[in-house]
Protein backbone atom coordinates (compact mmCIF):
# COMPACT_ATOMS: atom_id res chain seq x y z
CA UNK A 1 0.00 0.00 0.00
CA UNK A 2 1.78 3.07 -1.18
CA UNK A 3 0.80 6.65 -1.30
CA UNK A 4 0.63 6.51 -5.07
CA UNK A 5 -1.97 3.78 -4.99
CA UNK A 6 -5.15 5.55 -4.02
CA UNK A 7 -7.29 2.46 -4.30
CA UNK A 8 -5.32 0.45 -1.79
CA UNK A 9 -6.82 0.02 1.65
CA UNK A 10 -5.66 1.17 5.01
CA UNK A 11 -3.98 -1.16 7.39
CA UNK A 12 -6.52 -3.51 8.89
CA UNK A 13 -7.41 -2.59 12.42
CA UNK A 14 -10.45 -3.83 14.33
CA UNK A 15 -12.90 -6.25 12.84
CA UNK A 16 -14.96 -4.30 10.31
CA UNK A 17 -18.17 -5.63 11.76
CA UNK A 18 -17.18 -4.35 15.20
CA UNK A 19 -16.47 -0.93 13.81
CA UNK A 20 -19.65 -0.89 11.83
CA UNK A 21 -21.68 -1.89 14.87
CA UNK A 22 -20.03 0.76 17.00
CA UNK A 23 -20.74 3.46 14.45
CA UNK A 24 -24.29 2.32 14.08
CA UNK A 25 -25.03 2.45 17.78
CA UNK A 26 -23.37 5.83 18.24
CA UNK A 27 -25.21 7.24 15.31
CA UNK A 28 -28.72 6.02 15.93
CA UNK A 29 -28.54 6.76 19.64
CA UNK A 30 -28.01 10.43 18.99
CA UNK A 31 -29.85 11.20 15.86
CA UNK A 32 -32.57 8.80 14.91
CA UNK A 33 -36.18 8.26 15.64
CA UNK A 34 -37.33 4.82 16.69
CA UNK A 35 -38.75 4.30 13.25
CA UNK A 36 -35.48 4.93 11.47
CA UNK A 37 -33.64 2.96 14.14
CA UNK A 38 -35.61 -0.15 13.30
CA UNK A 39 -35.13 0.40 9.61
CA UNK A 40 -31.41 0.92 9.94
CA UNK A 41 -30.99 -2.05 12.24
CA UNK A 42 -32.81 -4.17 9.72
CA UNK A 43 -30.53 -3.00 6.94
CA UNK A 44 -27.43 -3.67 8.95
CA UNK A 45 -28.67 -7.05 10.08
CA UNK A 46 -29.17 -7.90 6.44
CA UNK A 47 -25.99 -6.49 4.97
CA UNK A 48 -23.57 -6.37 7.90
CA UNK A 49 -22.58 -10.00 7.51
CA UNK A 50 -21.46 -9.28 3.96
CA UNK A 51 -18.90 -6.67 4.94
CA UNK A 52 -15.89 -9.00 5.36
CA UNK A 53 -16.48 -10.65 2.01
CA UNK A 54 -17.19 -7.63 -0.11
CA UNK A 55 -15.16 -7.65 -3.32
CA UNK A 56 -13.66 -4.21 -2.75
CA UNK A 57 -10.26 -4.79 -4.30
CA UNK A 58 -11.56 -6.87 -7.14
CA UNK A 59 -14.03 -4.17 -8.07
CA UNK A 60 -11.43 -1.45 -8.09
CA UNK A 61 -9.00 -3.60 -10.01
CA UNK A 62 -11.49 -4.93 -12.49
CA UNK A 63 -11.46 -3.84 -16.11
CA UNK A 64 -13.82 -0.91 -15.93
CA UNK A 65 -14.72 -0.58 -19.56
CA UNK A 66 -17.35 -3.32 -19.57
CA UNK A 67 -20.83 -2.24 -20.47
CA UNK A 68 -23.06 -2.00 -17.46
CA UNK A 69 -24.99 -5.19 -16.94
CA UNK A 70 -28.58 -5.17 -15.81
CA UNK A 71 -30.21 -3.74 -13.80
CA UNK A 72 -30.26 -0.29 -15.33
CA UNK A 73 -28.77 2.65 -13.55
CA UNK A 74 -31.29 3.86 -10.98
CA UNK A 75 -30.43 7.56 -11.09
CA UNK A 76 -29.10 10.20 -13.49
CA UNK A 77 -25.79 10.23 -11.62
CA UNK A 78 -25.44 6.45 -11.91
CA UNK A 79 -26.24 6.59 -15.62
CA UNK A 80 -23.17 8.78 -16.21
CA UNK A 81 -20.88 7.31 -13.54
CA UNK A 82 -17.48 5.80 -14.33
CA UNK A 83 -15.31 3.30 -12.48
CA UNK A 84 -11.78 4.26 -13.46
CA UNK A 85 -10.91 7.68 -12.05
CA UNK A 86 -11.47 8.23 -8.31
CA UNK A 87 -10.23 11.81 -8.63
CA UNK A 88 -13.18 12.78 -10.83
CA UNK A 89 -16.57 13.78 -9.42
CA UNK A 90 -18.47 11.24 -11.53
CA UNK A 91 -16.67 8.24 -10.01
CA UNK A 92 -19.48 5.87 -9.13
CA UNK A 93 -19.03 5.89 -5.35
CA UNK A 94 -19.35 9.67 -5.21
CA UNK A 95 -23.09 9.68 -5.88
CA UNK A 96 -23.75 11.45 -2.58
CA UNK A 97 -20.36 12.87 -1.64
CA UNK A 98 -19.98 16.52 -0.67
CA UNK A 99 -16.59 18.10 -0.36
CA UNK A 100 -13.00 17.53 -1.25
CA UNK A 101 -11.96 14.11 -2.53
CA UNK A 102 -9.40 12.44 -0.29
CA UNK A 103 -8.21 10.66 -3.45
CA UNK A 104 -7.03 14.10 -4.63
CA UNK A 105 -5.73 15.21 -1.23
CA UNK A 106 -3.03 12.62 -0.53
CA UNK A 107 -5.39 9.85 0.52
CA UNK A 108 -7.46 7.38 -1.45
CA UNK A 109 -11.00 6.29 -2.12
CA UNK A 110 -11.25 4.89 1.41
CA UNK A 111 -7.96 6.20 2.85
CA UNK A 112 -7.26 9.40 4.74
CA UNK A 113 -4.29 11.59 3.85
CA UNK A 114 -1.40 11.52 6.32
CA UNK A 115 -1.92 13.92 9.18
CA UNK A 116 -5.66 13.37 9.28
CA UNK A 117 -7.92 10.85 10.97
CA UNK A 118 -11.03 9.06 9.71
CA UNK A 119 -14.22 9.81 11.54
CA UNK A 120 -15.88 6.83 13.21
CA UNK A 121 -19.23 8.31 12.16
CA UNK A 122 -20.59 9.08 8.73
CA UNK A 123 -23.61 9.47 6.54
CA UNK A 124 -24.61 6.64 4.26
CA UNK A 125 -25.38 6.74 0.57
CA UNK A 126 -26.46 4.07 -1.86
CA UNK A 127 -24.49 4.08 -5.12
CA UNK A 128 -24.81 2.00 -8.26
CA UNK A 129 -21.62 0.48 -9.64
CA UNK A 130 -21.85 0.31 -13.45
CA UNK A 131 -18.92 -2.11 -13.40
CA UNK A 132 -20.90 -4.96 -11.84
CA UNK A 133 -24.48 -3.72 -11.92
CA UNK A 134 -24.73 -3.82 -8.14
CA UNK A 135 -25.72 -1.09 -5.71
CA UNK A 136 -23.65 -0.64 -2.57
CA UNK A 137 -24.05 1.10 0.76
CA UNK A 138 -21.29 3.69 0.89
CA UNK A 139 -20.17 5.40 4.10
CA UNK A 140 -18.89 8.92 3.41
CA UNK A 141 -16.36 9.16 6.19
CA UNK A 142 -14.68 12.50 6.62
CA UNK A 143 -10.97 12.74 7.27
CA UNK A 144 -10.40 15.28 10.01
CA UNK A 145 -7.83 17.27 11.92
CA UNK A 146 -6.58 19.61 9.20
CA UNK A 147 -8.53 22.41 7.55
CA UNK A 148 -10.13 21.99 4.13
CA UNK A 149 -7.90 20.24 1.59
CA UNK A 150 -9.25 22.67 -1.01
CA UNK A 151 -8.71 20.62 -4.12
CA UNK A 152 -11.66 20.94 -6.50
CA UNK A 153 -14.81 19.98 -4.64
CA UNK A 154 -17.49 17.49 -5.68
CA UNK A 155 -21.14 17.49 -4.79
CA UNK A 156 -23.17 14.34 -5.32
CA UNK A 157 -26.76 14.53 -4.18
CA UNK A 158 -28.29 11.12 -4.95
CA UNK A 159 -30.43 10.34 -1.95
CA UNK A 160 -29.11 13.36 -0.04
CA UNK A 161 -31.68 14.48 2.49
CA UNK A 162 -31.78 17.49 4.82
CA UNK A 163 -30.04 17.53 8.17
CA UNK A 164 -33.20 16.48 9.97
CA UNK A 165 -32.34 13.14 8.34
CA UNK A 166 -28.70 13.10 9.51
CA UNK A 167 -28.07 9.54 8.38
CA UNK A 168 -28.50 10.73 4.79
CA UNK A 169 -27.18 14.29 4.98
CA UNK A 170 -23.89 15.48 3.56
CA UNK A 171 -23.86 18.99 5.07
CA UNK A 172 -22.96 17.86 8.58
CA UNK A 173 -19.29 17.93 9.62
CA UNK A 174 -18.91 14.21 10.12
CA UNK A 175 -15.84 14.42 12.34
CA UNK A 176 -17.41 13.30 15.59
CA UNK A 177 -14.95 11.39 17.73
CA UNK A 178 -11.79 12.63 16.03
CA UNK A 179 -10.71 15.37 18.42
CA UNK A 180 -11.12 18.72 16.72
CA UNK A 181 -14.02 18.53 14.28
CA UNK A 182 -12.01 20.15 11.51
CA UNK A 183 -12.87 18.76 8.09
CA UNK A 184 -10.16 17.99 5.55
CA UNK A 185 -11.66 15.69 2.89
CA UNK A 186 -14.18 12.92 2.22
CA UNK A 187 -13.71 9.21 1.60
CA UNK A 188 -16.26 6.72 0.31
CA UNK A 189 -16.08 3.34 2.01
CA UNK A 190 -18.18 0.37 0.93
CA UNK A 191 -19.99 -1.00 3.96
CA UNK A 192 -22.61 -3.24 2.40
CA UNK A 193 -24.39 -4.46 -0.69
CA UNK A 194 -27.70 -2.78 -1.34
CA UNK A 195 -28.82 -4.61 -4.46
Amino acid at each position, binding site marked *: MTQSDPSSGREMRANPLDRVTERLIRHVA*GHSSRRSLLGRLGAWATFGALVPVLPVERVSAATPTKAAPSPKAP*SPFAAKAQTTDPTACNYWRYCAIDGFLCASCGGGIHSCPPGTRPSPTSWIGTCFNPGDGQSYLVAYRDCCGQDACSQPACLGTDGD*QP*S*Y*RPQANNDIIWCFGTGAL*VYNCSTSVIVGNAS
Partner: protein
Amino acid sequence: MLKLPTKLAAMTAFLLATVASGACGSAYADDPVLQTEESDIIKLSPVTDHRILVQDAVGHHAKDGRVYVVDADRGKLLGMVQAAYNGNVVQDPKGRAFYVGETVWSRGNRGDRADLLASYDPQTLEIVNDQVLPGRALVTPKKNDLTISSDGSRLYIYDMVPTNAVHVIDTASHKLSLNVDLPGCALTYPWGNAGFTSICADGSLANVSLNAGKAEVTHTKPFFDPEKDAVFEHSPTRRTDGKTWFISYSGLVYPTALSAQTKIDTAWSIQEAAGMKAAPAADSPFTVTWRPGGWQLSALHYATGHLFVTMHQGTFWTHKTAGTEVWELDVETHKLIRRIKLPKPSSMVGVTQDAKPLMFTSDEAGDLFIWDATTGTMLRKMPHLGDDLYFTVALGE
Protein backbone atom coordinates in the same frame (compact mmCIF):
# COMPACT_ATOMS: atom_id res chain seq x y z
CA MET B 1 33.92 65.18 -2.66
CA LEU B 2 32.58 68.52 -1.25
CA LYS B 3 33.78 69.67 2.12
CA LEU B 4 31.16 69.86 4.85
CA PRO B 5 30.61 73.72 4.92
CA THR B 6 30.35 73.72 1.15
CA LYS B 7 27.88 70.84 1.25
CA LEU B 8 25.66 72.60 3.82
CA ALA B 9 25.62 75.76 1.75
CA ALA B 10 24.60 73.84 -1.33
CA MET B 11 21.76 72.08 0.50
CA THR B 12 20.50 75.37 1.93
CA ALA B 13 20.46 76.95 -1.47
CA PHE B 14 18.60 73.97 -2.91
CA LEU B 15 15.95 74.07 -0.18
CA LEU B 16 15.41 77.83 -0.58
CA ALA B 17 15.04 77.41 -4.30
CA THR B 18 12.57 74.60 -3.78
CA VAL B 19 10.46 76.63 -1.35
CA ALA B 20 10.57 79.66 -3.62
CA SER B 21 9.50 77.73 -6.67
CA GLY B 22 6.71 76.04 -4.67
CA ALA B 23 5.40 79.35 -3.45
CA CYS B 24 5.29 80.70 -6.96
CA GLY B 25 3.65 77.54 -8.47
CA SER B 26 0.04 78.40 -9.30
CA ALA B 27 -1.15 74.76 -9.20
CA TYR B 28 -0.65 74.47 -5.42
CA ALA B 29 -1.21 78.12 -4.47
CA ASP B 30 -4.55 77.56 -2.72
CA ASP B 31 -3.93 74.12 -1.23
CA PRO B 32 -3.56 74.14 2.55
CA VAL B 33 -0.56 72.45 4.01
CA LEU B 34 -1.49 68.94 5.13
CA GLN B 35 -1.91 68.69 8.87
CA THR B 36 -0.84 65.85 11.09
CA GLU B 37 -3.46 63.16 11.63
CA GLU B 38 -4.58 60.66 14.22
CA SER B 39 -5.95 57.19 13.63
CA ASP B 40 -9.66 56.82 14.23
CA ILE B 41 -12.41 54.26 13.63
CA ILE B 42 -15.46 54.68 11.47
CA LYS B 43 -18.79 54.42 13.31
CA LEU B 44 -21.72 53.35 11.19
CA SER B 45 -25.19 54.87 11.35
CA PRO B 46 -28.00 52.76 12.81
CA VAL B 47 -29.02 49.82 10.65
CA THR B 48 -31.13 50.69 7.62
CA ASP B 49 -33.37 48.54 5.47
CA HIS B 50 -30.75 48.18 2.78
CA ARG B 51 -27.77 47.50 4.99
CA ILE B 52 -27.40 43.75 4.93
CA LEU B 53 -25.24 41.07 6.45
CA VAL B 54 -23.71 38.54 4.06
CA GLN B 55 -22.55 35.19 5.37
CA ASP B 56 -19.37 33.78 3.77
CA ALA B 57 -18.44 30.25 4.82
CA VAL B 58 -15.12 30.38 2.91
CA GLY B 59 -15.30 26.66 2.29
CA HIS B 60 -11.75 26.35 1.00
CA HIS B 61 -10.40 27.46 4.37
CA ALA B 62 -13.44 27.13 6.54
CA LYS B 63 -11.80 28.20 9.78
CA ASP B 64 -11.76 31.73 8.35
CA GLY B 65 -15.50 32.27 7.86
CA ARG B 66 -16.77 35.82 8.04
CA VAL B 67 -19.83 38.05 7.87
CA TYR B 68 -19.73 41.13 5.66
CA VAL B 69 -21.67 44.31 6.37
CA VAL B 70 -22.81 45.76 3.06
CA ASP B 71 -24.53 48.97 1.99
CA ALA B 72 -26.62 47.51 -0.81
CA ASP B 73 -27.71 50.93 -2.10
CA ARG B 74 -24.13 51.80 -2.93
CA GLY B 75 -22.73 48.33 -3.38
CA LYS B 76 -20.14 49.14 -0.75
CA LEU B 77 -18.48 46.99 1.89
CA LEU B 78 -18.80 48.73 5.26
CA GLY B 79 -16.90 46.23 7.39
CA MET B 80 -16.74 42.61 8.40
CA VAL B 81 -16.49 40.35 11.42
CA GLN B 82 -15.09 36.86 11.85
CA ALA B 83 -17.45 33.89 11.89
CA ALA B 84 -15.13 30.97 12.46
CA TYR B 85 -15.82 27.48 11.22
CA ASN B 86 -19.27 27.13 9.76
CA GLY B 87 -20.28 30.25 11.60
CA ASN B 88 -23.82 31.49 11.53
CA VAL B 89 -25.42 34.90 11.92
CA VAL B 90 -28.80 36.30 12.85
CA GLN B 91 -29.87 39.89 13.42
CA ASP B 92 -32.10 41.43 16.05
CA PRO B 93 -35.40 42.17 14.26
CA LYS B 94 -35.03 45.88 15.08
CA GLY B 95 -31.36 46.00 14.19
CA ARG B 96 -30.15 46.62 17.73
CA ALA B 97 -27.53 43.89 17.50
CA PHE B 98 -26.47 40.94 15.46
CA TYR B 99 -25.27 37.61 16.76
CA VAL B 100 -22.59 35.31 15.38
CA GLY B 101 -22.35 31.67 16.39
CA GLU B 102 -18.88 30.27 15.82
CA THR B 103 -16.52 27.52 16.89
CA VAL B 104 -12.81 27.70 17.62
CA TRP B 105 -10.14 25.45 19.08
CA SER B 106 -7.54 26.69 21.55
CA ARG B 107 -4.65 25.70 19.28
CA GLY B 108 -6.13 26.38 15.89
CA ASN B 109 -6.99 22.96 14.52
CA ARG B 110 -6.62 21.20 17.89
CA GLY B 111 -6.95 21.74 21.61
CA ASP B 112 -10.02 22.68 23.58
CA ARG B 113 -13.14 23.44 21.61
CA ALA B 114 -15.16 26.57 22.33
CA ASP B 115 -18.57 27.24 20.86
CA LEU B 116 -19.22 30.94 21.07
CA LEU B 117 -22.00 33.42 20.60
CA ALA B 118 -20.67 36.91 19.91
CA SER B 119 -23.12 39.80 20.24
CA TYR B 120 -22.13 42.72 18.05
CA ASP B 121 -22.90 46.43 18.20
CA PRO B 122 -24.13 47.04 14.64
CA GLN B 123 -22.64 50.54 14.49
CA THR B 124 -19.15 49.87 15.83
CA LEU B 125 -18.94 46.15 14.93
CA GLU B 126 -17.45 45.69 18.40
CA ILE B 127 -18.31 42.62 20.46
CA VAL B 128 -20.47 43.67 23.39
CA ASN B 129 -20.78 40.18 24.81
CA ASP B 130 -18.82 37.01 24.07
CA GLN B 131 -20.71 34.06 25.43
CA VAL B 132 -19.57 30.44 25.69
CA LEU B 133 -22.28 28.10 24.45
CA PRO B 134 -22.95 24.53 25.59
CA GLY B 135 -22.51 23.59 21.93
CA ARG B 136 -23.76 24.19 18.42
CA ALA B 137 -24.22 21.95 15.43
CA LEU B 138 -21.27 21.98 13.04
CA VAL B 139 -22.92 21.91 9.67
CA THR B 140 -22.63 23.98 6.51
CA PRO B 141 -24.31 27.24 7.57
CA LYS B 142 -28.09 27.32 7.36
CA LYS B 143 -30.23 30.15 8.64
CA ASN B 144 -32.45 27.89 10.68
CA ASP B 145 -29.62 26.59 12.84
CA LEU B 146 -29.51 30.02 14.56
CA THR B 147 -32.75 31.99 14.82
CA ILE B 148 -34.32 34.67 16.99
CA SER B 149 -37.75 35.34 18.46
CA SER B 150 -39.89 38.10 17.01
CA ASP B 151 -39.10 40.55 19.81
CA GLY B 152 -35.42 39.67 19.82
CA SER B 153 -35.48 38.41 23.41
CA ARG B 154 -34.53 34.80 22.67
CA LEU B 155 -32.06 33.05 20.43
CA TYR B 156 -32.52 29.45 19.36
CA ILE B 157 -29.33 27.50 18.68
CA TYR B 158 -29.54 24.03 17.21
CA ASP B 159 -27.11 21.43 18.52
CA MET B 160 -26.67 17.73 17.81
CA VAL B 161 -24.07 16.53 20.32
CA PRO B 162 -24.63 14.48 22.36
CA THR B 163 -28.28 14.51 21.25
CA ASN B 164 -30.45 16.73 19.11
CA ALA B 165 -31.35 19.77 21.17
CA VAL B 166 -32.00 23.48 20.99
CA HIS B 167 -30.28 25.90 23.38
CA VAL B 168 -32.45 28.88 24.26
CA ILE B 169 -30.43 32.02 25.03
CA ASP B 170 -31.81 35.09 26.79
CA THR B 171 -30.43 38.04 24.83
CA ALA B 172 -30.84 40.50 27.72
CA SER B 173 -28.90 38.52 30.30
CA HIS B 174 -26.74 36.67 27.75
CA LYS B 175 -27.42 33.46 29.61
CA LEU B 176 -28.64 30.04 28.66
CA SER B 177 -32.23 29.90 29.79
CA LEU B 178 -33.23 26.44 28.61
CA ASN B 179 -32.08 23.30 26.82
CA VAL B 180 -34.82 21.61 24.86
CA ASP B 181 -34.11 18.01 23.89
CA LEU B 182 -35.64 17.16 20.53
CA PRO B 183 -34.68 13.59 19.63
CA GLY B 184 -35.12 12.94 15.95
CA CYS B 185 -35.81 16.60 15.09
CA ALA B 186 -33.66 19.48 13.93
CA LEU B 187 -33.50 23.20 13.09
CA THR B 188 -35.72 26.00 14.42
CA TYR B 189 -38.54 27.99 12.82
CA PRO B 190 -39.65 30.71 15.28
CA TRP B 191 -43.26 31.75 15.71
CA GLY B 192 -43.72 35.11 17.40
CA ASN B 193 -42.29 35.20 20.88
CA ALA B 194 -43.92 32.03 22.16
CA GLY B 195 -41.79 29.30 20.69
CA PHE B 196 -40.40 27.54 17.66
CA THR B 197 -40.94 24.47 15.52
CA SER B 198 -38.44 21.85 14.39
CA ILE B 199 -38.62 19.41 11.48
CA CYS B 200 -38.45 15.73 12.40
CA ALA B 201 -36.95 12.78 10.59
CA ASP B 202 -40.31 11.12 9.95
CA GLY B 203 -41.72 14.13 8.08
CA SER B 204 -43.57 15.60 11.05
CA LEU B 205 -43.02 18.79 13.02
CA ALA B 206 -42.23 19.29 16.72
CA ASN B 207 -43.71 22.48 18.19
CA VAL B 208 -41.96 23.86 21.25
CA SER B 209 -43.91 26.29 23.46
CA LEU B 210 -41.77 28.29 25.85
CA ASN B 211 -43.46 29.55 28.97
CA ALA B 212 -42.17 30.43 32.44
CA GLY B 213 -38.85 28.73 31.87
CA LYS B 214 -40.40 25.50 30.66
CA ALA B 215 -40.81 23.90 27.27
CA GLU B 216 -43.83 21.95 26.13
CA VAL B 217 -43.55 19.92 22.95
CA THR B 218 -46.37 18.87 20.66
CA HIS B 219 -46.07 16.92 17.42
CA THR B 220 -47.91 17.05 14.13
CA LYS B 221 -48.55 14.01 12.02
CA PRO B 222 -46.06 13.38 9.21
CA PHE B 223 -47.07 15.44 6.17
CA PHE B 224 -44.30 14.63 3.70
CA ASP B 225 -42.12 11.65 2.81
CA PRO B 226 -38.46 12.61 3.46
CA GLU B 227 -37.13 9.84 1.24
CA LYS B 228 -39.29 10.69 -1.76
CA ASP B 229 -39.80 14.45 -1.56
CA ALA B 230 -38.18 16.10 1.46
CA VAL B 231 -38.86 19.72 2.36
CA PHE B 232 -35.95 22.14 2.20
CA GLU B 233 -34.46 23.38 5.44
CA HIS B 234 -34.12 26.77 3.76
CA SER B 235 -37.87 27.33 3.60
CA PRO B 236 -38.96 30.82 4.68
CA THR B 237 -40.78 31.71 7.91
CA ARG B 238 -42.53 34.98 8.61
CA ARG B 239 -41.37 35.19 12.20
CA THR B 240 -44.02 37.64 13.37
CA ASP B 241 -46.87 35.18 12.92
CA GLY B 242 -45.08 31.92 12.26
CA LYS B 243 -46.46 31.46 8.76
CA THR B 244 -44.02 29.18 6.96
CA TRP B 245 -43.94 27.91 3.42
CA PHE B 246 -42.14 24.56 3.38
CA ILE B 247 -40.85 23.95 -0.14
CA SER B 248 -40.21 20.36 -1.22
CA TYR B 249 -37.47 19.08 -3.51
CA SER B 250 -39.98 18.63 -6.33
CA GLY B 251 -41.45 22.11 -5.88
CA LEU B 252 -44.51 21.63 -3.69
CA VAL B 253 -45.20 24.46 -1.25
CA TYR B 254 -46.85 23.52 2.05
CA PRO B 255 -48.43 26.64 3.64
CA THR B 256 -48.08 26.11 7.36
CA ALA B 257 -49.18 28.14 10.37
CA LEU B 258 -46.70 27.31 13.09
CA SER B 259 -47.84 27.34 16.71
CA ALA B 260 -48.36 24.89 19.55
CA GLN B 261 -51.13 23.52 17.29
CA THR B 262 -49.46 23.85 13.93
CA LYS B 263 -51.80 23.67 10.92
CA ILE B 264 -50.57 22.48 7.54
CA ASP B 265 -52.60 23.44 4.48
CA THR B 266 -52.83 21.65 1.16
CA ALA B 267 -49.65 21.94 -0.87
CA TRP B 268 -49.51 23.81 -4.18
CA SER B 269 -47.00 23.39 -6.98
CA ILE B 270 -44.50 26.04 -8.03
CA GLN B 271 -44.50 24.62 -11.56
CA GLU B 272 -48.30 24.67 -11.77
CA ALA B 273 -48.23 28.27 -10.60
CA ALA B 274 -46.12 28.94 -13.69
CA GLY B 275 -48.52 27.13 -16.00
CA MET B 276 -46.49 23.91 -16.17
CA LYS B 277 -47.08 20.37 -15.02
CA ALA B 278 -46.24 19.67 -11.40
CA ALA B 279 -42.78 18.10 -11.17
CA PRO B 280 -42.51 14.43 -10.22
CA ALA B 281 -40.54 13.38 -7.13
CA ALA B 282 -38.08 10.55 -6.46
CA ASP B 283 -40.35 7.99 -8.11
CA SER B 284 -39.40 9.46 -11.51
CA PRO B 285 -35.81 10.49 -10.98
CA PHE B 286 -34.97 11.02 -14.65
CA THR B 287 -37.66 13.58 -15.48
CA VAL B 288 -36.09 16.90 -16.42
CA THR B 289 -38.10 19.99 -15.58
CA TRP B 290 -37.81 23.26 -13.69
CA ARG B 291 -37.04 22.60 -10.04
CA PRO B 292 -36.09 24.57 -6.92
CA GLY B 293 -32.47 24.18 -5.92
CA GLY B 294 -29.38 25.69 -4.37
CA TRP B 295 -28.53 26.51 -0.78
CA GLN B 296 -30.51 29.45 0.62
CA LEU B 297 -32.90 28.90 -2.26
CA SER B 298 -35.86 30.94 -1.06
CA ALA B 299 -36.72 34.30 0.46
CA LEU B 300 -40.00 35.88 1.44
CA HIS B 301 -41.02 39.53 1.35
CA TYR B 302 -43.21 39.50 4.43
CA ALA B 303 -45.50 42.45 3.66
CA THR B 304 -46.48 41.41 0.14
CA GLY B 305 -46.23 37.64 0.53
CA HIS B 306 -43.97 37.44 -2.49
CA LEU B 307 -41.84 34.31 -2.48
CA PHE B 308 -38.53 34.27 -4.37
CA VAL B 309 -37.12 30.85 -5.34
CA THR B 310 -33.95 29.94 -7.26
CA MET B 311 -34.94 27.54 -10.05
CA HIS B 312 -33.02 25.37 -12.51
CA GLN B 313 -33.80 22.73 -15.09
CA GLY B 314 -32.82 19.28 -13.93
CA THR B 315 -33.77 15.82 -12.77
CA PHE B 316 -34.79 14.85 -9.27
CA TRP B 317 -31.84 14.80 -6.83
CA THR B 318 -30.53 18.07 -8.25
CA HIS B 319 -31.85 19.96 -5.24
CA LYS B 320 -28.50 21.65 -4.58
CA THR B 321 -27.97 22.81 -8.15
CA ALA B 322 -27.72 26.60 -8.40
CA GLY B 323 -30.66 28.41 -9.97
CA THR B 324 -30.44 29.95 -13.42
CA GLU B 325 -33.59 31.95 -12.69
CA VAL B 326 -35.39 33.37 -9.69
CA TRP B 327 -39.13 32.83 -9.75
CA GLU B 328 -41.25 35.34 -7.87
CA LEU B 329 -44.54 33.88 -6.68
CA ASP B 330 -47.54 35.13 -4.72
CA VAL B 331 -48.15 32.84 -1.75
CA GLU B 332 -51.80 33.93 -1.51
CA THR B 333 -52.87 33.46 -5.12
CA HIS B 334 -50.33 30.71 -5.88
CA LYS B 335 -49.47 32.53 -9.10
CA LEU B 336 -46.16 33.25 -10.75
CA ILE B 337 -45.45 36.97 -10.83
CA ARG B 338 -42.14 37.03 -12.66
CA ARG B 339 -39.26 34.90 -13.87
CA ILE B 340 -35.94 36.68 -13.42
CA LYS B 341 -33.07 35.36 -15.51
CA LEU B 342 -29.74 35.48 -13.72
CA PRO B 343 -26.45 36.41 -15.39
CA LYS B 344 -24.75 33.64 -13.39
CA PRO B 345 -26.34 30.67 -11.58
CA SER B 346 -26.97 31.45 -7.93
CA SER B 347 -27.29 29.10 -4.97
CA MET B 348 -28.94 31.80 -2.89
CA VAL B 349 -31.57 34.49 -2.97
CA GLY B 350 -32.24 37.15 -0.37
CA VAL B 351 -34.65 40.05 -0.10
CA THR B 352 -35.02 43.14 2.08
CA GLN B 353 -38.25 43.78 3.96
CA ASP B 354 -39.01 47.43 3.14
CA ALA B 355 -41.51 48.88 0.65
CA LYS B 356 -38.83 49.21 -2.03
CA PRO B 357 -37.16 45.86 -1.56
CA LEU B 358 -33.84 44.78 -2.99
CA MET B 359 -33.10 41.22 -4.02
CA PHE B 360 -29.70 39.52 -3.82
CA THR B 361 -28.10 36.65 -5.70
CA SER B 362 -24.53 35.38 -5.89
CA ASP B 363 -22.39 33.18 -8.10
CA GLU B 364 -19.50 30.74 -7.87
CA ALA B 365 -16.96 33.56 -8.04
CA GLY B 366 -18.32 35.15 -4.86
CA ASP B 367 -19.91 38.11 -6.66
CA LEU B 368 -22.95 39.70 -5.06
CA PHE B 369 -25.67 40.84 -7.46
CA ILE B 370 -28.09 43.50 -6.20
CA TRP B 371 -31.52 43.72 -7.84
CA ASP B 372 -34.61 45.89 -7.68
CA ALA B 373 -37.04 43.30 -6.31
CA THR B 374 -40.07 45.24 -7.52
CA THR B 375 -39.05 45.12 -11.18
CA GLY B 376 -36.61 42.24 -11.41
CA THR B 377 -33.87 44.42 -12.88
CA MET B 378 -30.28 44.23 -11.78
CA LEU B 379 -28.96 47.42 -10.22
CA ARG B 380 -25.34 46.68 -9.46
CA LYS B 381 -22.79 43.99 -8.82
CA MET B 382 -20.14 43.72 -6.13
CA PRO B 383 -17.32 41.74 -7.75
CA HIS B 384 -15.86 39.02 -5.54
CA LEU B 385 -17.31 40.22 -2.29
CA GLY B 386 -16.20 36.90 -0.83
CA ASP B 387 -15.65 33.22 -1.57
CA ASP B 388 -18.83 31.34 -0.67
CA LEU B 389 -21.75 33.71 -0.17
CA TYR B 390 -24.35 31.45 1.41
CA PHE B 391 -27.06 33.84 2.52
CA THR B 392 -27.97 37.42 3.34
CA VAL B 393 -29.69 38.83 6.43
CA ALA B 394 -31.80 41.97 6.15
CA LEU B 395 -33.40 44.18 8.78
CA GLY B 396 -36.69 42.80 10.06
CA GLU B 397 -36.48 39.36 8.54
